């Protein structure tokens, strides 16, 4: 049973981790755009 939970947790950790990476990428770009418009 613990295998099952481990598997599901891993799936979501990886997916949410990727979303976090994307979010950070967006934020960094936003800062760069602000810098350009200065």
């Amino acid at each position, binding site marked *: *049973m613990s*295998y*099952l939970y*481990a*598997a*599901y947790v*891993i*799936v979501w950790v*990886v*997916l949410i981790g*990727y*979303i976090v990476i*994307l979010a950070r*990428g*967006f934020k960094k*770009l936003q800062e*760069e*755009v602000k810098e*350009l418009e200065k």
Partner: protein
Amino acid sequence: MKSKFAIFALITFALLTWGLYEAMIGAPTEATMGPVQRIFYYHVPCAWVMLLCFPANFLASIAYLVKRNAILDAFAVSTAEVGVVFCTIVLLTGPIWGKPVWGIWWTWDARLTSTLVLWLIYVSYLILRKFSIGGPNPVLAASLAIFGCIDAVFVFGAIRWFRTQHPQPVFGSGPNSGIDPRMLHAFFINMAAFTAFGILLVWLRFVLERTRQKVEEAHAMKALRATR
């Protein structure tokens, strides 16, 4: 565009939640494998998404080398990254399913080895993009993708012919015949949910990449204007 995206994201989220419910509770427990079999509802859809992403990247790479269009390159890197994400999930959940059910973490059969090789190839694709001098080099990356995909075909064939003496547990070919309709139901919901989620992620990454390309262009223009 943004509202279309928001609606799509909501639908995806709804599907994923429904899928999770079906996978954990809605579907009946499998007779021989027990509750661990439920990993199947996540493992197979993720493999499916990965098998959509990598060929998409292959086609986008070829198209890029022909047309040299930045949009194609953005699409290529998006499908590659999302493909690696889902491939990672497949490679992690597969052994977790395999150990309690078949007693082994891993075997070098055609399917597993090809998946591992694809993962290695696309990780090296991403590393190549990151480590190229002067920013990601789309031409080099596209060439690598072409080599990599042709190679994946060879890997599959090689193992089929040269390693057949090893036992062949069949991962990813779900529960046996006489499949319970409720299981099929749960399976299809999750397939739809993960396909939608895959599209969503590629969409997001694509927008990110296009924005990054435009920002870079703007930087270059600014530098150019400053020299006048």
